[in-house]
């Protein structure tokens, strides 16, 4: 799909407008479970942007679960952290207690966020009330009237019959209480104060959009949404493989859909990192004119060195079901049957909350009798170095945007064997082998082919290196955002001056 043109260029500005913009535009970057508290592709991209766009003053507002740990990234001098917003914590909302309750709040939220045709505007109106009455949120949700309104709204949602939406299951009281608790934290997130900003930059179409949407509704600030994976798609994947009861699955996916719809409807510009993700965004009925594909990128690499030729296959990624480590292990087992001298190294730590999945991976590793021939190496701080030491890069994810690990392999001139998910086919075109997700046989054959044909592997690696420099380089990525953010900041400044 061709990226639609986006008209964000600022109009010719009189001196007064220029003054407003020249006072360094302020960007509020909202993140969800990523930067600066977790490692990964999204965090790397955030860090790249903050360090690359020094002409902006950045404020990072992370939304995280309470874990008491320190940030993993040090923010540059022109950036500061606000918050973090700790959801599921024991904190009580601060703020003046005002008279008057809004017992309908939980009911409106459940209708607006979980209803198949829920109204994002109604949700936004409730979030605005939360922002103006932070202390009232807790009072409403602890009241019997709030619970009753929620149950009424839930009954309406469960009674919906839309062909595309399937038939909602009958949630039990525990699932309903869990959903009620989640909506409470969504309302609390909406109540969080946000610092002044000229542009809002949201990093996922989920929780991190909530404070930005409220800020935009209050101040008219333009909002950019960058999606690396597709939030909605990943929520469905998590629910599908989770195997939980129908009610929990329904609540989790519908909530993700409601948040994504709200985020898409509020965003002025939506930036997927690959064209493939745009289809998912369009499936929720957003205006195609809002979409601007901006690829991830890496620093222009040095000329690559030839692979070491030791039969080393490297994979980089969190130990997470989305990365399908089980398939990775089976690919290794099948490859080793044909190329016994091959060695597999997986770099990446376990995602928080996926410890059971890690145990299942270790059990499969033992069952396949891989021993030292497949090693879990833990987290790496030198991804380029580990890729350079490889002969082939392997990736078995079932969901991706534009994975940094693939770009890193290309930057080092290494061929890639990967699943064709998300933006991977667009990137790997002509510089590796692709297979369907979960197809361990095809993936293994790809690895075997490259290990047995080092000349071919080197040629594909060189092609990838050239392709990276041409299409997926860091400068292009940073420049794309520079242009976009400047354009929006100028537009915003104009609006502010006119309003003033």
């Amino acid at each position, binding site marked *: 799909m061709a990226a639609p043109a986006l008209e964000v260029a600022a109009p010719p500005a009189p001196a007064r407008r220029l003054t407003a913009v020249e006072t360094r535009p302020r960007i509020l970057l909202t993140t969800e479970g990523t930067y600066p508290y977790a490692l990964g592709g999204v965090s790397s991209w955030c860090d790249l942007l903050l360090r690359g766009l020094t002409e902006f003053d950045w404020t990072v507002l992370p939304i995280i679960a309470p874990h008491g740990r320190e940030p993993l990234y040090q923010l540059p001098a022109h950036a500061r952290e606000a918050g973090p917003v700790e959801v599921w914590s024991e904190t009580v909302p601060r703020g003046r207690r005002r008279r008057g309750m809004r017992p309908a709040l939980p009911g409106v939220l459940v209708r607006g966020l979980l209803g198949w045709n829920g109204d994002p505007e109604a949700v936004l109106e409730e979030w605005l009330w939360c922002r103006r009455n932070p202390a009232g949120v807790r009072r409403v949700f602890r*009241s*019997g009237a709030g619970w009753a309104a929620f149950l009424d709204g839930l009954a309406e949602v469960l009674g919906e019959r839309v062909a595309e939406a399937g038939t909602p299951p009958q949630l039990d*009281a525990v699932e309903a209480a869990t959903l009620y608790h989640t909506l409470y934290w969504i309302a609390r997130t909406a109540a969080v104060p946000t610092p002044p900003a000229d542009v809002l930059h949201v990093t996922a179409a989920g929780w991190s959009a909530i404070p930005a949407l409220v800020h935009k509704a209050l101040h008219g600030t333009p909002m950019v949404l960058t999606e690396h994976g597709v939030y909605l798609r990943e929520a469905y994947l998590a629910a599908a493989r989770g195997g939980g009861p*129908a009610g929990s699955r329904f609540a989790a996916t519908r909530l993700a859909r409601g948040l994504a719809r709200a985020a898409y409807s509020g965003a002025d510009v939506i930036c997927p990192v690959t064209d493939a993700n745009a289809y998912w965004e369009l*499936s929720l009925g957003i205006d195609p004119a809002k979409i601007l594909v901006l690829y991830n990128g890496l620093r222009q690499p040095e000329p690559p060195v030839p692979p070491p030729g030791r039969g080393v296959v490297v994979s980089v990624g969190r130990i997470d079901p989305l990365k399908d480590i089980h398939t990775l292990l089976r690919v290794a087992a099948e490859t080793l049957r044909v190329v016994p001298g091959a060695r597999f190294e997986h770099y990446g730590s376990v995602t928080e909350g996926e410890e059971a999945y890690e145990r299942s991976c270790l059990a499969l590793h033992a069952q396949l009798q891989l021993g030292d021939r497949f090693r879990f190496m833990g987290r790496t701080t030198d991804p380029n170095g580990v890729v350079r030491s490889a002969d082939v890069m392997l990736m078995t994810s079932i969901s991706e945007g534009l994975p940094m690990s693939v770009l890193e392999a290309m930057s080092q001139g290494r061929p890639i064997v990967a699943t*064709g998910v998300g933006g991977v086919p667009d990137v790997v075109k002509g510089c590796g082998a692709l297979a369907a997700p979960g197809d361990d046989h095809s993936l293994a054959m790809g690895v075997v082919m490259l290990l047995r044909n080092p000349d071919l592997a080197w040629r594909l690696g060189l092609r990838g290196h050239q392709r990276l420099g041409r299409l997926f380089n860091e400068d292009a990525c940073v420049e794309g955002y520079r242009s976009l953010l400047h354009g929006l900041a100028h537009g915003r400044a104009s609006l502010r001056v006119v309003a003033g």
Partner: protein
Amino acid sequence: MSPDVLRAGLLVEARLGRAPQDALEAAVVLEAWAGVPAQQALETARALMSGQPAAPATSRAAPAAPSRPPRQLLEGFSFVVAVAAIALWAAPLAAVLGAGVVRDALILALPVTLGLQWGMVARHLGRPSGLAGLAEQRNTLALTAAALLFAAAVLGLTGALAALLIVTWTAGTVVIRRGWAVAYCAVVAGAVPAMLLGIPAPALVAGVAAVTAALAWWALATVPTAASRPGRWSRTLAAGLTGVGLGVLLVSDPTVDWADGAAPALALLPSALGALWAGRHLWSLAGAFPRALAGFPACAARDAVPRSVALGPARVLAGAAWRLTALTAVGSVALLPWLGTDLTGVLVGYGLIALATMLIGIMDALGRPSLGVAAVAASVACALAVRALDPAVAGAVLACGGAVAVLLLLPAALVLLARPARTLATSVWIT
């Protein structure tokens, strides 16, 4: 429906082991596990869901398996040994310092200690990795203890003795929580024979306080570091006030002379042991709500729930109350030959206070700690009013105070337990 769509439907069902929830789920499966490009997957999935809507499936949450309560046997045993040993300190201390000093010191020390203990539990010790959180505050704790001793010295012998007891008991809580209950027992119980051998009791109490404080410091210094989140200050304050209130209640009865031998402290043992047993049973209360409500339709949760559902959590309360009452009664009867029938009222009073304490704990677990604070305040007011009447019956003040708290809290607890869905949603999970 075209053959391609039918085939896609079979593929989706085979992967999920059931029909897809909606078009988006079907699209995700087609894309992620069948390699169908996104646009085609979304279109196929929409076509797949165009049939007649199915009947709604009934869902049932899978409540977490009940967790095992923490080890309490050793803690309970060490509590018994510590109470008995400290009870035996009273006479030797009174012989040296005078009964009035010991009495006043205990009256001062008990409420302060209980306040500190309840506050520490709410802020740190009752929480995951709570010891690690408290360890970060150990310098503050040491300074507070030193300031307490210094300030108490201004009050003379009474203040100094009270401060030593407060340090011993409070530090003891940390040591026991660290799992070093045996060491704490050894220190406290070891002082008794030394006192009986003629070593000055005040010096021994000072020594025990110093050793226990050092043990607590060492316990905190060696605890493995872990990320921990302290409890809210408002909850800490409420817990602290509750502890102080209960302490005041315990020492408010003029017929109970804490300096007159070991009897008052020993009389406390049956109800304290009963409370420990009941507390262990109550560990399952939070899990009783989801277990009772799993499978119960959400949309029916607004109306009165069937008795079978409401009885789940209420049964836990009844089981805890039965354990507390039974053990208190049996223990009290067993102690009567030693204590004398004059102390029957005291034993009843302690039992009622233990029951009230249990109900306060339930209120806290159900997210309504302010009700506990209010009940304790009313209970203390009642006890002081009865005390002003100078009742002739031993233990009347204790019994009246305890009874007021029980009468206030029991109906509130029953109301909360009788509407489990609302309580779970609005109180237990939203604190």
